[in-house]
Structures are given as C-alpha cells and as structure tokens.
C-alpha cells in the first residue's frame, strides 16, 4: 500500500516520468491495441482514431494504472472505445462487409497485397458474426497469441471460463470458415 502511494506521488510529481511512461506504453502496446480494434470490427482509419483515443484516455488516467496491469488497462479501454466506435460507425460498416463477401472471390493471379486485404476482409466479416464474448477470446488467443491464463487475467474471468470460451470460439470460427469456403466453391471461385 505504501509502495503504491509512493508510486502515485512520484507519478503525479513528475510530468517527465509520465511522459516517459506514455511513450513506453505506445511503443510497447500500440500494435496490440490497434490490431485488437481492427479485429473488433473497425476499419483502418477508424482504428487509427480509436487507438489514439485509447492512449489519450490512458494519458489522463495514467495514475490509475499499475505497471503490471498496463496491458489489461489498455485492453479494457480499447474494448470500450471500440464498442462505442462500432455503435457510431455501424451503419457505415455494413456496406464494406457486404462488399467484402463479394471481393472474396479468389483471383489466382492477384497480387499478394490484394490477397491479404481480401483475406482480412473475410476474416473481419467472420469475426463480426461471432458472439462478442467468443470473438474477444478468440482474437486474443489466435491473433495476439496470448495463453489461456493470460486471457483469463486480461478479461477478468476464470481460466476455466476462458478455456471454455476459446473452445467454443474455435469451433464457431471453423464452422464459419467452412461455410465461407463452401460458398466460394459454390460460386465457382475456387477449385
């Protein structure tokens, strides 16, 4: 307790230390926050804005954040910011998702960049269809490569719950991918 109070005092009394810590937060966690926002349904430009908002929020509440919990804190802020952004951008987002399914038709000779973009568009579409609680666990495990205990800590849920959600999320995702693949074949886009 005394150590926490001392740390708080130090943080408040040293703007330089706060700046240093903020830069460190961006350096260490920006990609994580940005990718999380992307996979939670925001488009690139919107993810840029939302990620900035996450770190600006962090800058205002820096004194609340204990060093070992920085990532969990950013994750929590990112979820809130992402959810708000999705609500406000929901209508805008529908069109590209529909368009994404059209773009999924493979183009064997397409450039790799375009293929990646198409793959991400389909990935985002499939993730968007997943229940939120499964989607979050799935993204953290498959894309951010966190372990189940780490996910449990980040989401503040028991490890068993995290493991159960992960199992269901993987089944759910693979089913969706299988359906997407079937649609591609049916449409003559794949052989």
């Amino acid at each position: 307790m005394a150590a926490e109070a001392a740390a708080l005092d130090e943080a408040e009394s040293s703007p330089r230390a706060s700046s240093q810590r903020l830069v460190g937060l961006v350096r260490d966690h920006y990609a994580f926050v940005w990718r999380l926002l992307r996979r939670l349904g925001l488009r690139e430009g919107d993810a840029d804005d939302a990620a900035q908002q996450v770190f600006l929020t962090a800058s205002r509440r820096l004194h609340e954040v204990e060093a070992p919990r920085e990532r969990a804190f950013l994750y929590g802020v990112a979820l809130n910011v992402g959810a708000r952004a999705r609500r406000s951008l929901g209508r805008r987002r529908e069109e590209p998702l529909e368009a994404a399914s059209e773009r999924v038709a493979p183009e064997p000779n397409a450039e790799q960049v375009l293929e990646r973009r198409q793959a991400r568009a389909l990935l985002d579409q499939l993730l968007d269809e997943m229940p939120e609680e499964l989607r979050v666990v799935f993204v953290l495990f498959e894309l951010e490569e966190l372990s189940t205990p780490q996910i449990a800590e980040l989401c503040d849920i028991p490890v068993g719950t995290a493991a159960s959600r992960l199992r269901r999320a993987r089944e759910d995702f693979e089913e969706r991918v299988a359906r997407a693949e079937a649609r591609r074949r049916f449409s003559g886009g794949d052989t």
Partner: protein
Amino acid sequence: MTDPERISKRSRGLAAQLLQAGAEEQPAEASVQQTLAALGASAAVVSAAGSAGAVAGSAKGALGAGAGAGTATVGGTAAGGAVKVVSATLLMKWVGIGVVGGVGLAGAAAVASGPAVSPPAFHAVVAAPAPAPEPVLKPAPATPELLAPSTAVEAPVVAVPTTPSTPAPHVGAGEPVTPAPVLEIGAPLAAEVAYVDRARALLASGQVEPGLALLRSYERDFPEARLLPEVLFLQLETCDRLGRASEARSAARRLLDGFPKSPHASRARKLLFP
C-alpha cells in the same frame, strides 16, 4: 492446462490463411506518430499543470488567426508551487488537437504560442521550480523571444534555465539546420516530437543530409531520447532508400536490440533477415 495448437500455425487451410493475414497486419507508421504527437501535445499541458498549487489561476484560450496558425494561451497565477513557462508550436500537421483553450490551471502559468507551419519550429522553456516554501506569484514572462513567431527554417531549441528569468538560447532564421548542442534534460515530450517532425519534414522535402544530421544529433540533444525507436526507424528507412545499406542495417540492429516490441521492429527484422 495446455493450450490447443493455434489455427494460425497450421500449414494450410483457409482458416489459417485468414488468421495469418490478420496477425500480420500492422498499424501504419503515421498512425503511431499521430498518437505520439497527440500525447506530446498533451504532455506540454500536463507539464504545466503538474506543478499546480492550491489556488486556481485564471486561464484563457485563444485561437490564432491566419492561415493555419494556431496560438494557444493559458495564463494564470501561481501560488505555493512552481511556475512553468512553456512556449510551443503544437503539431497541427499530425493532430487535430493541441491547442489549449479554456483550461483552468490551478497555480500554473503557461504560455503556448507559435505558428503552426510545416515544418514547425519549436521553442520551449521549462523553468525549474521556484524555491519552496515561499509562494510564487508570478505571471508568465511574456518575453518577445518566447512569443515571437518563429520562421519555418528555425531550428528547434529547448532549454532548461535555472531560473524562470533566464533567457532561452535562441537560434535564429538562416542559421544552420543542425541545432546547437543544447542539453535537453527535462524537455517536454512535445519538444522531442517537434524535433523529429522537423527531421521528417526535411527528409520529405528532399533535404536528406540535413534531415539525417538532425536524426543523428537527436540523442545528443535529447538525452532521454524518448522517441529513439521512431528516430532509428526514420534513419533505417531513409538510408535503405538511399542504398546506404550499412547505415540502414546499423539503425535496424539498434532498433531491434533496444526496442524489440516496437511497432517498427518488424521492419527492422525484414531488413536484417530478408
């Protein structure tokens, strides 16, 4: 409990391809810089507010007129704490924020001024705290040097005088691009952001050598080097494009060794281990 094998690690299959594509995605460099710039602008304000005492000061905000010019002024009186004076051109180029207006700072006096030109010039004076415990009631010194608009070719200068009245070193227009070796201990993050932005602007305008010279002197001028990964990244990219492989690899190695979790680390890896 053992985690299952990740789908993305499978060697084939659409699910693996989709997840690999998702995991590879990285934010754009500009996106990271934009956030750093936004935080830098905030840091200047936090720096001023951080020394707040118990007495609320008066504050006023003003937007400067003219093409792209942004002037922010927060004036107040200070009591029981330090007086800080910050004069800064905030980075309008990258962020839509950074103009401080209508902020009620308690016991802090801050002045932020300057035109938002690109590349921006930057002046900052951070005064050491006034000797405690005697309350300091002193308005921000509105010296012409602090408030005068800077020219686009002016080198960034940040100084830390020992007293609030110590004049800041000033580099005028027409002087060499490389700034004088001024010790920047305690300089606000915004100063570092402005410095790096200036180097970026030089590089973008084709002034490669002056830009690289600024980057090389960054660590000397800012011993805290809070933006070192970004500086190394700029060095890496510039030297790589110029075909200066040795310098590019040197920057990449420093970036990878010192900041393996940086958003730029993947670029360094690609250069070192193609």
